[in-house]
């Protein structure tokens, strides 16, 4: 490939003139093509976090139980018994739009590697999905491909997919969001990190062979770069879950020895970022001989090998005397294993190929002088709180409409394509509890996991909306009886060069940080995905709704104490928390009044914490039979969802609460609230009063109907039929 390296080429690689100037400064000469490639990917938004870094720094990341916060491949928290939970969430938005199946599949593969690279066996996958309007042509194809891809990969590698979330909105029409999260378990004293050490130690490549997959996917379109090649060679990567499964087993087997000094998966920007980051973190130099890289295609150049994003590959630094032990393990699992270089004392990365020095870059400036931008931003105008909205349709009609709408309809069509039980530890599957629960093998402990975000709230008020997302994740874990430990995040936003989008980002981080601090719920890992926008043929660009997806992990000491939300027979129903009856940004407002305005629900973090701590203590002391938090759709939807799971109805007493109109009372999306089914409502309310927690009797469970003081009576079978209909009707026609 003969390309003249100059400012114009750098621009096509995504480097600004100023950035290219810095490159020239660092190098003291014109860089080679391979060097330019390395700078451009290391300084891309994806790898350098140049627009987001200064803001991310403000997030709280510490707690006594945090073992490793952001900065490693995944976050690590202590879960007791000498064990840790290792987890992270990552996006694969753009690839999933281009090729939904492979995009989603490789997204799952990538996040799995981030977790097992730290020595953890992956035990749970989650997926947070946002799709365009169901009525938009093309949405269906994307839903189909993404769901098949998530399932195809997760089912084959044998990691249960136990939870997630799905929203539909036209703002995602040309830019769906696919955020995948993996949770793994590792012994606390055997966590593997990526900082390389030991001059002379071998650098080892394992996994699949390298091909020309996804070269420069992040920074430029390859058609611009090489039109001839682009026609034949797509930038789409194909996932190979079978090889990933072997890689998991081989790595975990190797991790039981003490051969590994450092290890890092090859994610975005493949060999470049793994080599640069490992050496950079360890403060050593690294030399690679690309002739030794296992190659799937012939005639690959150094540039291509350094930038390939072929999947299912890892880079390790081994103790030299243990290299043979490692080789045997990878041979047993029939994976490629190659020594492709060694660590040096030069503090540079040097790349040799066919006897030629293809790159020679000092590592410190490559990392330290990476651009950081403080992009200009404007705050989203404060939303106007709604005054009363009249009810045009009545409670029953609204209930049925909401239960059948795309954002509330049963997701069974999706999770029934995901193996949620493999591993034999799944205690609460999707659709049965506010968080899924996976037992920690060999113990009685359970991990509670969930993902949450309500993008319409964030859009209306980025700070409050992002705080709500953190609070909802915390609440969902609490509602099972587990103690919330920490979160990972996936910050999906539009173009940061647009000050309005940047304002959403800045304020969302602020809201998240506030909630994390108030709830003792630090951020231990995360991912930022910017430039999510739909380009319309007329040239207009529409940003996605700002979507800071929150993935959370909690722990419960005894899985048999955890509760779900299936409505039990013969229990008192108690509402914990205070209702405000505010319909702003509610699903009722959107689906029934056809408006998307107002302020999102008030997030009172003090009430959130107080109410949640009370609910959790009641659950772990055995007083709660079932529990469900209030979220999308509000109180009546929460009750209906509980009934739909078990088929058991309930009889509600007429609310004495009369400050809000009935529809606002039933469909307002009040925060910090839980419906609890208990054997003794009186005792529950007394306990709540003692703890200064608002509590109120709702009625009693039993029967086959959702019965509102005999004024409105809807059979649970009808609720279920309406709730079940959307996905099969939409997808299988």
């Amino acid at each position, binding site marked *: 490939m003969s390309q003249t390296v100059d400012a114009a080429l750098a621009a096509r690689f995504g480097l600004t003139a100023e950035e290219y100037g810095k490159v020239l400064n660092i190098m003291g000469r014109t860089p080679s093509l391979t060097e330019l490639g390395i700078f451009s990917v290391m300084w891309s938004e994806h790898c350098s976090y140049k627009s987001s870094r200064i803001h991310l720094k403000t997030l709280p990341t510490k707690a006594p139980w945090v073992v490793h916060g952001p900065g490693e491949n995944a976050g690590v928290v202590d879960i007791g018994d000498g064990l840790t939970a290792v987890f992270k969430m990552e996006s694969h938005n753009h690839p999933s739009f281009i090729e939904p199946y492979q995009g989603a599949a490789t997204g799952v593969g990538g996040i799995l590697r981030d977790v097992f690279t730290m020595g953890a066996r992956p035990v749970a996958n989650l997926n947070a999905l946002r799709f365009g309007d169901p009525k938009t042509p093309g949405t269906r194809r994307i839903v189909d491909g993404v769901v*098949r891809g998530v*399932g*195809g990969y997760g*089912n*084959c*590698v*044998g990691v249960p997919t136990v939870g997630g979330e799905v929203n539909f909105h036209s703002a995602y029409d040309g830019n769906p969001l696919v955020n995948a999260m993996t949770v793994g378990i590792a012994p606390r004293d055997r966590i593997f990190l990526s900082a390389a050490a030991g001059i002379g130690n071998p650098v080892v490549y394992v996994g699949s062979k390298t091909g020309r997959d996804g070269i420069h996917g992040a920074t430029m379109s390859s058609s611009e770069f090489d039109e001839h090649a682009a026609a034949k060679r797509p930038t789409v990567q194909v996932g*190979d*879950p*079978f*090889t990933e*499964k*072997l890689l998991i087993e081989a790595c975990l087997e190797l991790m039981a020895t003490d051969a590994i000094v450092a290890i890092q998966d090859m994610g975005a920007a493949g060999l470049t970022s793994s080599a640069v980051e490992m050496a950079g973190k360890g403060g050593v130099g690294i030399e690679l001989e690309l002739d030794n890289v296992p190659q799937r295609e012939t005639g690959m150049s150094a540039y291509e090998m350094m930038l390939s994003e072929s999947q299912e590959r890892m880079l390790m630094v081994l103790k030299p005397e243990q290299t043979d032990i490692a080789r045997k393990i990878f041979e047993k*699992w*029939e994976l490629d294993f190659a020594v492709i270089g060694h660590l040096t004392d030069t503090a540079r990365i040097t790349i040799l190929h066919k006897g030629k020095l293809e790159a020679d870059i000092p590592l410190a400036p490559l990392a330290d002088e990476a651009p950081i931008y403080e992009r200009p931003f404007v705050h989203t105008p404060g939303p106007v709180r709604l005054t009363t909205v009249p009810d045009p349709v009545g409670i029953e009609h609204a209930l049925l409409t909401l239960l059948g709408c795309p954002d509330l309809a049963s997701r*069974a069509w999706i*999770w*029934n*394509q*995901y*193996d*949620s*039980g*493999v*591993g*034999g*530890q*799944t*205690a609460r599957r999707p659709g049965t509890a506010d968080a899924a629960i996976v*037992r920690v*093998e060999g113990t*009685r402990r359970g991990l509670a996991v969930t993902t949450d975000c309500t993008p319409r709230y964030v859009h209306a008020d980025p700070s409050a909306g992002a705080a709500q997302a953190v609070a909802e994740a915390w609440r969902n874990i609490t509602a099972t009886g587990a103690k919330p430990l920490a979160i990972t995040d996936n910050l999906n936003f539009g173009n940061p060069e647009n000050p309005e989008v940047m304002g959403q980002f800045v304020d969302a981080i602020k809201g998240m940080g506030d909630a994390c601090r108030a709830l003792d719920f630090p951020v231990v890992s995360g991912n930022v995905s910017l430039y999510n926008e739909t380009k319309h043929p007329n040239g207009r660009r529409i940003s996605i709704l700002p979507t800071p997806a929150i993935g959370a992990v909690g722990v419960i000491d005894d*899985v*048999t104490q955890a509760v779900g939300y299936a409505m039990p027979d013969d229990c008192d129903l108690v509402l914990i928390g205070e209702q405000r009856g505010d319909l702003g940004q509610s699903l009722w407002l959107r689906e029934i009044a056809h408006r998307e305005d107002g302020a999102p629900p008030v997030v009172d973090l003090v009430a959130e914490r107080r109410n949640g701590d009370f609910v959790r203590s009641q659950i772990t002391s055995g007083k709660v039979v079932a529990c469900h938090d209030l979220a999308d759709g509000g109180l009546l939807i929460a009750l209906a969802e509980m009934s739909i799971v078990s088929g058991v109805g309930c009889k509600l007493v007429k609310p004495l609460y009369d400050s809000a109109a009935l529809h606002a009372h039933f469909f307002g999306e009040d925060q910090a609230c839980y419906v609890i089914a208990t054997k003794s409502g009186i005792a529950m309310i007394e306990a709540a009063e003692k703890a200064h927690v608002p509590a109120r009797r709702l009625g009693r469970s039993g029967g086959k109907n959702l019965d509102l003081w005999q004024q409105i009576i809807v059979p649970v079978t009808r609720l279920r039929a309406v709730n079940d209909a959307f996905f099969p009707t939409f997808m299988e026609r």
Partner: protein
Amino acid sequence: MKAGIVLFPGTNRERDMAQALRLVSGREPVMLWHRDTALPSLDLVVLPGGFSFGDYLRSGAMGAHSPIMREVRAFAEAGGHVLGVCNGFQILTEAQLLPGALLRNASMRFLSQDCHLKVENNISPYTRGWSKGDVFRAPMAHGDGNYNAAPDVLDRLEGEGRVAFRYAEANGAVDAVDPALNPNGSMQAIAGILSENGRICGLMPHPENLVDPDLGATDGVPLFKGLVESLVA
């Protein structure tokens, strides 16, 4: 009961199976490797679920040609007991240790949901833990579970009482043409079958995932209890 679980590259339900065998028999099963060319002394060989070799050609095809399958065949021919669950069932049919084949689910989708199984015979070690006609719940998780066999093969299976389990409603009703009752479209709603001597059993759903009261259900326990009762000398 000395049980061995065969691990193929891509197997992923071996831990689930080991957990079930351990819980019910009180004994740790041994893990066998697909390249092994000899079996230790065993009462039962289990081919667990998963995606052997990614199921990249046909489910179970490459697994069925692994070196260890020669030993499993010899073990079976000598009267040994072999249980194949899910991918294990697919491997047993590909190896022609059980008749028929498992095609893509009629819905063309991977199905991960609870189903109910009707126990059609109680004379084998795999079914004796129940009474004939009992119904139990079991999760299924497969893309290729659509049982298919030539008419004469089906007639023999039915005639010889070798259908072990059928997909059913909780009340025992069977309807092979109703996708709600026979989700993957199997012929005659067949979920599991036995070999002529009753010692090889293959089934698609996962009773091994419902054996632990701490996880909320024990519907799969009779299968393992029956085996222990039959095979503990």
